[in-house]
């Protein structure tokens, strides 16, 4: 299969920042998966010179999120063979477009193992993702590799170096790809042309019940939509603690005063729910931290105990 050659990789400033933050706060080397999508972008600049052939449309990969693993050799073995079954839990709603590796104070070149992992990852057939806006049915295999390191000499300012590659399975080579950091602001508005939201927030059609009468001629098409809406409604009802959406209409007009108390009651219930959730998160992250430090201690123990024999 011919590799699709990427022109560039786009990553939003906050995503890159949060990645670097994660990597530099980690006690040791880390690696993980990159999620996102790949899009064909038609060239927007038309050449004045007609003799000049218009540039090919660009293939751009956008990294939208990442997942780092708490230990090395997490989704691959010591030979760099990817265990595809370990990837499946991370695949719902998201598609893997590559992976990254961060190792401090090392050359900014892929290692033996990184080569093997990239080769293995890009050759898993059911991981390849369809290219968006493509005029033909093309698939992109997860072949992006992002490498992070720090300078060999200690610096006064914390410095991170990174480089992106695309693994080309036909040539068995890494092809360096430029990274475009997309930021918010007028200068970057054009970058959001291919924006697509990644969150799994359900579309809540709340007004459905009041509007059905007007749309009777289209009920048949909407039958499945209605089922979905009913499901969404029940999800929403759970959040409202028994406060029905219809009651909100009474907030306007003379009855309003009576209902403020009811609304306040709703907010209070919601707040206490959030608070208890926060507390839950707090205790569970304390437990995670405790477990992590315990694991580290165990690993040190193993490291110290060996050589002695």
């Amino acid at each position, binding site marked *: 299969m011919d590799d699709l050659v990427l022109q560039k990789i786009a990553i939003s400033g906050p995503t890159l920042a949060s990645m670097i933050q994660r990597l*530099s706060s980690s006690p*040791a*080397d880390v690696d993980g998966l990159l999620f996102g999508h790949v899009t064909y972008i038609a060239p927007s600049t038309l050449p004045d010179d007609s003799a000049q052939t218009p540039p090919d449309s660009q293939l751009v990969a956008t990294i939208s999120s990442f997942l780092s693993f708490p230990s090395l050799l997490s989704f691959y073995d010591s030979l760099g063979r990817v265990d595809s079954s370990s990837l499946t839990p991370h695949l719902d709603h998201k598609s893997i477009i590559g992976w990254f590796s961060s190792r*401090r104070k090392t*050359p900014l070149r892929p*290692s033996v193992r990184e080569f093997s992992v990239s080769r293995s990852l890009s050759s898993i057939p059911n991981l390849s993702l369809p290219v968006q806006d493509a005029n033909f049915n093309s698939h992109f295999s997860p072949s992006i590799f992002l490498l992070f390191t720090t300078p*060999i000499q200690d610096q006064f300012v914390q410095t991170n170096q990174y480089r992106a590659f695309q693994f080309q399975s036909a040539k*068995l080579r890494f092809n360096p790809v430029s990274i475009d950091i997309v930021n918010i602001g007028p200068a970057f508005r054009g970058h959001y042309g291919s924006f697509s939201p990644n969150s799994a927030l359900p579309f809540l059609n709340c007004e459905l019940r009041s509007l059905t009468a007007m749309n009777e001629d289209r009920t048949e098409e909407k039958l499945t939509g209605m089922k979905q809406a009913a499901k969404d409604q029940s999800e929403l009802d759970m959040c409202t603690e028994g406060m029905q959406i219809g009651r909100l209409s009474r907030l306007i007009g003379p009855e309003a005063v009576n209902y403020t108390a009811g609304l306040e009651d709703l907010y209070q219930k919601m707040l206490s729910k959030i608070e208890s959730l926060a507390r839950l998160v707090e205790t569970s992250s304390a437990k995670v931290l405790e477990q992590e430090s315990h694991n580290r201690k165990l690993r040190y123990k193993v490291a110290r105990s060996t*050589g002695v024999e």
Partner: protein
Amino acid sequence: MSFDGFPPFISAQLHYLLNHFPDKIKVEQVLSGGKSYTGGLDRFTLLIPYCLDHIKWDVIYNAEFPLSPPDIIFGPDDEDFHPLHATGGEGEGDLKSRTRSVLSDWNNKDPTRLLALIQELRDQYMSYQRKRVGEVDDDRLKFEISTILSREGIEMHISSGAEKPEEVKFSVPLMDMNINKMVHACPWRHPQKIYLQVIYPVGRKYASTPSAPRLKLMSTIELRVLFSVDDVKLPPWLDGMCLAEYLPHLEESLEKQVLEAVSLIDIRRRFIEALAPLFGRPLEADPIFCRKATFLESSGSFVFLVHVLISTQFPKQQPALMLQSSQHISPQGVPKQSPLLTDYPWSPRWEASQMAERIYDFLVDESLNFKRFCNESQSQH
């Protein structure tokens, strides 16, 4: 070097590698990959001898995850070297599967593992370079390889920098003789060898006659104490010659010269023994190669040391003498020394006893000069 900062499992494996690798490996850039230095040092660069040069490989362990095997980054010019990727090429499969098995059943408690890994990878690197050289489109080179490949231990390397013209380098080990065995009480840990470095320029396809390769003799460093390859005059490379023709003559003459160099040890030993009746028992003498002897002498109340430094060209070349005072010390705390004295009456045809006498006579006068020199420089301070 010190192994203090390493976790014990890395230190044990690195120690074993340095002590058991057949050649001398250097370690550079020892660093820690941890956020703070608590985990210890866990990454370093190895300078591995290859084809009369070094290849630099970065070995990356992870102090936090002692159970996982180290990762390796090869040099920037070797981005097509993929030792783990099984292509199923001729003979390659075996090498690769061996490397793979070293990595797949890695055991951090076994100190021999790093050595095994590096050796397997180096073997593969050798066949990778050989394959690249074989792919070079140069008729002369193809002929040379086909005639010489049967020799054991040949290493090849292709260098292709952006600025430099493409070159292929061969390192050809010469003479199937064990020099270590020829030296009595040999102190060398690594086998000593002499190599011919042959560099072929590549790419001038349309030249009528291929230009002569650049030839240079090289030896392991420790061999220099016995035999210096710089003293060897290489036979000329005739037009249209090939390596298979050239090597037998070179080896024949080298073999003679090495044998002679070994026999010269005894000549030097006899010379040092001949010095003893006149100079007294040496304070210190090199008992294996007999390249150096030191005697304690006096001239009146002036006591000094005589260092006799004997070159590998002895007796053709006279020994260099150096006097060192036992009574005068420079402000830096270093004993006063004379420059190397090599200009005194000498004939390689003299008997050892006569050589000793002539040196003794020369030093009787020279010691007075040296004493004056020491006293004068002392009084200046």
